[in-house]
């Protein structure tokens, strides 16, 4: 039975919201260029561009943020705000060591302790470090301020720890405690619920996952990850026209996974030529992203090369880079899978030993 929340919170239509987001963001860039001292501009730029990357798969946002961070570090490296922004950008690009160094400098320079803690927790969570401590701090944050921005990372952490029921409760709480009319919070919570049911549970419930992905896309039609995951479910059920409609809706996003899934769609319908063409495009897009932000896309690209990309050697290389950057359970599993795909038994054995030592998990 599908766990539902009715009614879902009201929100501004996703297309209207997106238009406003882009309009306001363009203005914030104008302000940064012309009135760089304006309070709030840097935060608005960071939030706006991060939203473009997270929700709309617009990874050129990372290029712009990298440029912004470099500009600030060049001109005002002695300001806490510059170091903090640079740390947030580094973390978004999965340059965690660099992010930690910048965050330390920001702290010394007097950055807001709450903002420092927020980013510290995100980095620790991404690295899979001290997760129980992170959990306690995230729960404290939620008690102090029950917002989607606090609740959803808590849910994600609970999911990382395998506490799926608790994670679901927290996501539902995030959904029902949504304030205002922004569709971002509700869409994000719905996506996380879909991901929980579709990707994380030992026995996925695709019906439940589709229900939540559908809501995420309804809130925000350009929500690329949600559209792609929902398309995958339709594809699995041979509902090709639905999958096609969804993938086309986010084709311009810049996320190569859209092309990868489109290739699977063509292949499932017997059009191997079109499928190959899409794989070639996806490969070029992944390599382009890797050339600019390798660590941010190493795991996704590794998954691609293990799948439709048909290049296990490249997958292994990327997954090991990813593992070297953050030795999470998932990173071990991915590298192990890649090593197996290449037939490099020594690497397989070493990864198995290391994963058992660090996480107590074994691979069959």
């Amino acid at each position, binding site marked *: 039975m599908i766990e539902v929340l009715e009614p879902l919170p*009201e929100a501004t239509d996703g297309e*209207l919201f997106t238009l*406003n987001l882009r309009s306001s963001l363009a*203005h914030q860039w104008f302000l940064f260029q012309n009135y760089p001292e304006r309070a709030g501009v840097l935060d608005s730029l960071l939030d706006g561009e991060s939203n473009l990357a997270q929700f709309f798969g617009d990874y050129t946002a990372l290029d712009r943020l990298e440029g912004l961070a470099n500009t600030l570090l060049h001109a005002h490296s002695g300001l806490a705000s510059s170091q903090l922004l640079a740390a947030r950008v580094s973390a978004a690009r999965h340059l965690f060591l660099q992010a930690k160094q910048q965050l330390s400098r920001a702290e010394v320079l007097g950055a807001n302790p709450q903002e420092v803690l927020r980013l510290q927790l995100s980095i620790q969570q991404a690295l899979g470090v001290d997760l129980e401590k992170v959990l306690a701090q995230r729960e404290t944050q939620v008690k102090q301020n029950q917002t989607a921005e606090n609740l959803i990372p808590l849910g994600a952490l609970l999911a990382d720890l395998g506490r799926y029921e608790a994670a679901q409760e927290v996501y539902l709480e995030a959904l029902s405690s949504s304030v205002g009319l922004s*569709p971002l919070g509700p869409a994000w919570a719905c996506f996380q619920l879909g991901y929980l049911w579709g990707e994380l549970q030992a026995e996925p419930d695709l019906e439940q996952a589709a229900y939540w992905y559908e809501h995420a896309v309804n809130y925000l039609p350009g929500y690329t990850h949600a559209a792609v995951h929902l398309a995958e479910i339709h594809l699995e059920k041979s509902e090709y026209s639905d999958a096609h409609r969804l993938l086309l809706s986010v084709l311009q996003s810049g996320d190569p996974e859209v092309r990868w899934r489109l290739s699977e769609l063509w292949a499932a319908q017997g059009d191997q030529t079109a499928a190959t063409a899409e794989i070639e495009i996806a490969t070029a897009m992944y390599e382009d992203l890797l050339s600019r932000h390798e660590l941010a896309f190493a795991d996704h690209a590794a998954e691609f090369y293990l799948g439709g990309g048909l290049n296990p050697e490249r997958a292994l290389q990327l997954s090991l880079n990813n593992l070297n950057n953050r030795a999470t359970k998932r990173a071990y599993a991915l590298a192990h899978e890649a090593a197996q795909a290449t037939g490099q038994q020594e690497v397989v054995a070493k990864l198995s030993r290391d994963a058992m030592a660090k996480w107590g998990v074994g691979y069959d």
Partner: protein
Amino acid sequence: MSDHIDGPRTTADPTIDLTDLFAFTKPADPTRLVLIADVFPFAGETGVFSNAANYSIIVRRVKVAGLGINAKFESYGDQIRFNFQFDTLKPTELSGVNPKSQSGSCTLPTGEVVPLVVGDEQGSYSKDRSIRVFAGVRSDPFYIGWLLNNMKSVPNYLQDDNVMGLVVELNIDQFLPLSQGSVFGVVAETSPRKRGPESLAVPRYDWVGRPEQTNFIMNVVPDSVDLRDLWNQQTPFQSLPPELAPLFQKRLRDSFELWDKRDGEVNWDPAALNAHINVRLDDFLVFDVSKPITNDSLLEIEKSTIAGKPYTTGGGRTIDANSIDILVTYLINRDQGKFYQSMATQATQPGLTTFPYLAPPNKKMLQVSHQVELLAKPAQVWSLVGQFDSAWSPLIASIRVTGSGVGQLREIETVDGKTIVERLESLDAMKQTLTYSMVSGIPAKPYNGKIQVVPSDSGCLVIWTVDYRPSGQGELIVRLIIQSLLERSLKALQEKFGQAK
């Protein structure tokens, strides 16, 4: 800032964040009243309204119920509500930058629903043409020149910003008959469009009466809880709930006392301070349509009433009123000392004298700039690129000039068969600088180019800059057109004169 960014609920979706409220009689016809509410700070150039919110301007009759230390304004009678609602985007027949447009409506106090198209400067009329309404992106009329922490004066902090404006112009006699009184209060509010027991929504997202009730007044007490979101959910024209009234009273007292101390003197005696608190707790903008509403009349009705004397103006708030400096002066010295004039003396654009009264949106200019360093003397290069009729770019197939001197036109036939017409704006041989504007041929307007030759160690630099705003095509396409033009042309100069290492 007046009411900009005053709580988490409104910043999550800024289209429900009310920024300002204005009420004034039409400059050329005092029998008509203009009411304006603005939302969406930093709206950019292509903002739209939420389809899930009500945007309301509400007028109610008001009477002066007490003077001096008993100063009070009491609202009474029916609420006269103008309620705007907006749709999702729909395809439009208008070609151009936005392939879709937003429609909406304004429901009048009579129940008539007046349809409107967002951004249509002509606005829409009620059936009997007594009411005219507008909604769309406009230049932010608010201006502020104080940094609150240290009262440092700075230029307008909202320069070049846009907001979404909602405008209602009406016949006073028809909707607010003077026979029943001439004093009114007005508020604007944003609230959920869908309501009821099945809805999770709060009753209201934001509301605004007098300027700065939330930011400059409620949010300036150090180390205090942010009450703005709680305030925004209270019901205008109603008494505060008994359990909350003391909380807001204390916050106003703390705030007013801090303001009073800013000049090192005490200008507010306890009784006057109490009266001010009581007036402010009833937060609506007071205006009297029988008296002149001018740029200086903001808060005059409240001030005079607290001072225990009859007011002399129509109060209200005009678009160009120096709201912040008027307010700050009153808060600091109760108008008994200097006027606190900041460096901000007007908004980016002043208000218009005619409908829709809010100035058009500010547009940003984009820029493409390229430069090359050449192994040639500046004069040698200038003798080529400084000639307005010289076809030195390989993209030019032919060039024909009409007229002479500044103002002359050149008609360029490009190698790919397009025609571009450009006007010479200036030619400075001493500074080796030529500026021109594009009249037609490239999808941008305005489009201003500058070519400059500057001496360098190894020869000279040619710097070519184009400031433009895309028109009729997307940003990326226009940028590519201009980039290609500059790059290929300057590359030809490199080939001709040699490139510096």
